[in-house]
Every structure is written in C-alpha cells, then in structure tokens.
C-alpha cells in the first residue's frame, strides 16, 4: 500500500522530467514553430484575396527627394574622429525604443574602437533624463525632446546638447476578420481624424461609415460590425508620444480632451480598451482579439513579420495619399521634417517634432506621416577629457557610421540634413572651453 504511493510519486516526477526534456527537444527541432501554443485566432491568412488597396501615390517623387539640406552652415564633411583615444567606459541610460539598435552598435563600435566600452541601460526615457540630470551617466537618451521643466532641472551652469541618433515610425496595427471570413491583411486605410475618433471611443464598430468612407468599395462592403477594441501601451513610451502627437494635430477634440503629447499620455476612455506593457504586450493583446487595433512601432512589426496574426494599415499624409510605412517613405518624412529647420544642438529642442513639421507639408507626397526622432543627450562642457573625447567619438560614429546597421531591425537611417545638424552639434562639445572635435 505504502509502496504503491511511492511508485506513483516516482512515476509522476519521472514523467514530468521526461516530458520536459522531450518537449524541449521536439520544439527545438522544429525551431521555426512558435514555442508556445499560439492562442486563438487561427492565422488562416488568405493573402492576395482580400483586396489591399494602398493607393500608391503618384506624381512628383522628385519634390520630396530633394529638399534643401543643411540648415546650419557646415561646409565640411563628417568631422574626423580624434586619432588616439585613451581607454574609457561610457555609460548611458534612456529609452527602450533604441535598445535593440544600441545592442547592435555596441559590438560594432567595440570593433572599431577596442579601447572604449559602451554600456547602455534601457530604463525608459524619463529615467534616462533623470540620470542624465543627476550626472550619473555619460549620456542620456530620450524618445521625446526635453521639456522646459527638464531643461530648468539641469545642474546650474550646464548646457545639454540634443543629438537625434535614430528614428522610428508608428503604424496602426490590427487584427480583423472581414464579413466574408477572411483576414484583413496590410492596407486598411486610416486618417488621423478617424484614428483619433477610434481612440476617443466615438467610433466603436468596424463598419462605421467614417471608416468605410476611407476604403475601396470592395473592402468597405466587407467591414464587419465587430466592436473595435483599442489597445495601447501601459508603460510610458516614445512610440505613444509619436502616436498621440499625430492625433493631437489631427483632432481638436483629442487636443482638448487629452492635452499636449507626452510619453505617458492620459488615454481617453473607450468602450472596449486595454493597455499592455511594451510593444510585445500590445502586439500580443491585438493578435489575441478579433477587432483589436493599436499603435505599434514599425521596427517591431518588421522584425516579427509572419510570426503573428498582425497586420497594419496605411495613414493619409498631408497630400491626401494613403501611405503604407516602409523605410524609404519614413526617410522621406524625416528629410521633409528636418528641412524646415532644426535648432542648434545646445538650444532648446522642446518644440521639435517631425510630425508637427510635416503635418501640413503637401509637397512631400510620398512621406509616411507618423515618424519620430529619438535623441541622445550630452553635456556641452565635459569635465574629463578622456571621457569627453570618447563620448564625442562614439556619438560621431553612431551618426556617421552606425546608421545603416539598424535597417535590418526596422530603424530608418537619418537623412543627410539631420546628420549635418548632428555633426555641427558635436563640434559644440568642449573641454576647458575648447571644442573636442576640430
């Protein structure tokens, strides 16, 4: 009797161990299947059939391709890095948006400059600015420019230099089964006003006339009466900053109800609404519910193509063209946004917004409208030459040599006119009153 129980216990334990080992082996053999049983919404994708419009914008591609670059007078090309650098360890902290790209930059830079080690702590933009202000890191990083209050909070006598180091775009991602049973793939059309009304809770079903009016007749006829579930980030994020910045410009109701854009905006109450942490949380929530929509960073979508039941829509730009985000039309938006002028690196960047700059720009007809820069923050007057020289060298390398390393991850290389502004800003960094870069 007693031994029976012992045997049962032994069998249970052995079964758990064997099951775990076999399960692991089985999953690792077929490594391209997802390791967790994908929950609901079978990804039965019928690709071509579901009429994806994407009105390819015609006319003048030349206008957007050649904006007048270099708002600041920098006749010289990229500044030559200092030839010999002492060994140094650079510590940075800030936004999570840049973290995947930073982890590509770190080893690549280590190869170029083996004596310098860069550590980056993705604590969030707000915490990054706090640590930068407390001078516990060599550089801060933020997805939103510093606010007036944050500039005022800097230690007295110091000046912050703002350096755009990368860019990203935000797309409306959704999971929608059409009335005929097929899955809506990429290319549902949106405007800023309609997106604002969806997230304000005033458009509540997918067959709302306001959404139907934006689609081709064949798609409009298939939009179901499914309730719209809105999903957004529960944590503060540069992705949300860009998205609400666009809605803020697109809808006066949004502007009065939600207020000025921030990395952790006060979302209005929609009838069916949830928030989840990080891009992965938002993506998971959208893909688990038919009829869900939420803003996602383009890099996240491109990295996970084919792995989730997520699709994303087009957004109308100022010229009225519906643009499906990709690296080239995001680059076009950045170039157009920077061509209307950026402040000097040591001036206030509080009001800088690529979205504001391009919101009424009707000449850049191919640009994707929801784009945002992410910024590194360094002090103008460096107090330690070795650290300062290493920091300037690293930033210069990021801006001039590191940009193309991120394209595989969905990060858009900065256009030439922003690189020129960055190089001018880096020349402002001094040690003992003299610029570190000559």
């Amino acid at each position, binding site marked *: 009797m*007693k031994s029976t129980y012992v045997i049962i216990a032994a069998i249970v334990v052995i079964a758990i161990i064997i099951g775990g080992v076999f399960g692991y082996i089985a999953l690792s053999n077929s490594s391209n299947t997802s390791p967790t049983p994908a929950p609901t919404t079978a990804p039965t994708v019928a690709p071509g059939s579901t009429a994806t419009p994407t009105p390819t914008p015609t006319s003048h591609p030349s206008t957007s391709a050649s904006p007048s670059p270099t708002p600041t007078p920098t006749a010289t090309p990229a500044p030559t890095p200092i030839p010999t650098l002492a060994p140094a360890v650079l510590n940075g902290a800030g936004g999570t948006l840049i973290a995947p790209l930073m982890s590509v930059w770190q080893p690549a830079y280590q190869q170029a400059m083996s004596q310098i080690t860069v550590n980056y702590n993705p604590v969030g933009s707000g915490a990054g600015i706090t640590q930068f202000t407390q001078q516990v890191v060599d550089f801060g990083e933020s997805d939103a420019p510093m606010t007036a209050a944050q500039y005022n909070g800097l230690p007295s006598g110091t000046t912050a230099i703002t350096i755009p180091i990368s860019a990203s775009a935000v797309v409306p991602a959704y999971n929608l089964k059409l009335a005929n049973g097929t899955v809506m793939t990429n290319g549902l059309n949106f405007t800023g006003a309609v997106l604002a009304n969806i997230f304000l809770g005033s458009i509540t079903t997918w067959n709302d006339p306001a959404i139907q009016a934006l689609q081709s007749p064949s798609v409009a006829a298939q939009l179901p009466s499914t309730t719209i579930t809105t999903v957004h980030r529960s944590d503060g994020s540069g992705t949300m900053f860009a998205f609400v910045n666009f809605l803020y410009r697109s809808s006066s109701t949004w502007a009065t109800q939600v207020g000025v854009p921030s990395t952790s905006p006060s979302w209005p109450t929609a009838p069916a*609404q949830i928030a*989840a942490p990080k891009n992965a949380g938002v993506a998971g929530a959208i893909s688990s519910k038919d009829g869900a929509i939420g803003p996602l960073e383009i890099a996240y979508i491109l990295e996970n193509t084919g792995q989730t039941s997520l699709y994303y829509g087009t957004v109308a730009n100022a010229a009225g063209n519906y643009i499906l985000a990709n690296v080239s039309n995001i680059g076009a938006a950045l170039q157009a946004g920077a061509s209307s002028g950026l402040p000097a690196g040591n001036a206030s960047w509080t009001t800088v917004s690529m979205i504001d700059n391009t919101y009424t720009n009707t000449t850049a007809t191919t640009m994707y409208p929801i784009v945002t820069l992410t910024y590194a923050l360094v002090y103008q007057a460096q107090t330690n030459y070795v650290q300062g020289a290493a920091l300037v060298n690293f930033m210069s390398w990021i801006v001039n040599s590191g940009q193309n390393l991120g394209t595989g991850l969905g990060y858009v290389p900065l256009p030439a006119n922003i690189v020129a502004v960055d190089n001018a800003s880096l020349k402002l960094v001094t040690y003992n009153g003299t610029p570190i870069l000559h």
Partner: protein
Amino acid sequence: MQFKVLRGDTILKILLATAALFIIGLVVALAAELFLGSASSIHSFGPSFLIGTQWRSSQNVFGALPFIYGTLLTSAIAIVIGFPISLGVAIFISEKLKGHQTFGYGLGIIVDLLAAVPSVIYGLWGVFILIPLLRDYVETPLHNSLGFIPLFSGNPFGYDFFTSGVLLAIMVIPTMSAVTRDVLSVVPNSQREAMYSLGATDWEVTQKSVLPYARSGIFGGFILGLGRAFGETMAVTMVIGNIPNITTNLFSAGATLSSLIANNFGESTGIYQSAIIEIGLILFFVALLVNGLARFMLWRMTSGARGRA
C-alpha cells in the same frame, strides 16, 4: 571561565539586538524615503489623491482610488479561489497521507515548486495560456448564462480583474498551503486519538479537532498569501489590462497600485514621479493595515484558544 561565558553571551546579545534593530531601521527608512519622495505630491493634492477616480498624468490629475480598488479586488479573488485549494492540499497531505510520507513529501515538493517559478514566467503563461483559456471556456459561458449579474456583465476579453485574480490565486497557493501543512503536521496525535476514541469519522476529526487547534497558524499562512497577492507586480501587470476602472464587473480591465508603479516609474519626472511614489506609500500602508488587522484578529482568536500551533 565564568567571565568568558558572560562575555560571549553579551556579544551574542549585542549581535542579535543589532540584527533586530537593523530590520526596524529598514522599515523606518523605507517609510521615511516614501514620505520624502511623495512630499510634493502630498502637499499639492492632499487627501483628494486618495479618493480621486481620475488618473491623467499629462494634466496633473492624480487619483489613487481605482488602483487601490484593483489591488483589493484582485487580492480578494485570489484569496477566495486560492485559500480553499491550499487548505484542501494541506489537509490531504497531512491527514489523508499520514501513513504515506514519501508521496506526501513528493506532493509537497511539487506545490512548493510553484513558489519557485519567477513571476514574469507566470505573466507570460498568463498571456499565452490562461487568458485564451479563461476567456473562451470560463468567462464567455459565464457571461452568456449569468450576464444579468453585474459581476459577469462585461464583454470578456481575458485581460481583466478575473484573470489577474486567478493567476494570483495560483501564485499564493504554495505560500498558504506550505504554512498550513506545517501547522497541521504539528497538531499532537492525542487530539486526533481522543476524537477517534469517541467514534468520530475522519472528517469529524479534521473538522472538530485538527482545524480548530491549528487555526491561528492557518490564519498566519492566509496573511502571508494575502501579502504576496498585494505586492505581486509583474504577472498582474501583464494580464490585468492596465485601465484604471472602478466597476463590479470582473471581466473589465483594471489596474493595481503595483502595476501602475511598474508601468510608469521609468518615464516619470517631477510631480508625476512624486505622485507615483505616493502610490508606493499607499501600497505600503494598505499592506501594513491589512497585516495589522489580520494580526489583531489572530490575537483575538488565540486569546481564547486551547493551544497554539
């Protein structure tokens, strides 16, 4: 010789006193830091912070009530589901398996292993397994058949109070059952034998003799579990939906004090950060209050009890 022994005792006494004082100092320092960090928020918003129902950080409108409500509600669900299960597991191991120590140990170890799983793993499991499972097989049927009751009136999405409560229940079971098991195992056999000699059945022995004898210890385990449910952050953040809501509808997204801190601390500065630290202060005091209340009830219970476990 005599002198030496006294010296050793004195040193030991000082060392032990230091250890004890260190803990007291730590609690005081924690409270002081939370008060200092939230000073500007307490000063600006006063008591309206506690009863406000709106949380709009960009407009500096801060109300903690939805988060307090979320913390209490999810913990209550966790206890309602988790406590009977823990009690059942403990009684089964210590009473029914009395003659089969090995199997009892094995089962106990498996239950204890639940406590060793990191909470972010529970969160991931919650997102990918528990949410679809509960939504399709529990919440939707409940909503369809009992939707007229306010508790089940919402359109089930899976990211809600109910899922968080179930996940928390799983996380508090090992704590509660381990303590209960230990307490039941030290109930003297004379207690049981006395009942059996009167012709009592197994259940009568457990119900009338063992459980009353061990009730203070069981209650202690209950409190430990409750403490875990209050403070649990990561797993809850991943499944609760993070929308500040005060509603009796269990199938609605909510938010807890700890999920708010986890979500927003990194992006906060100035008065916003101060408000988040005040949320931490509230969590600290809610936990102290509930623990204190439980201790008081324990004291009331044991003052009349025949023995202690």
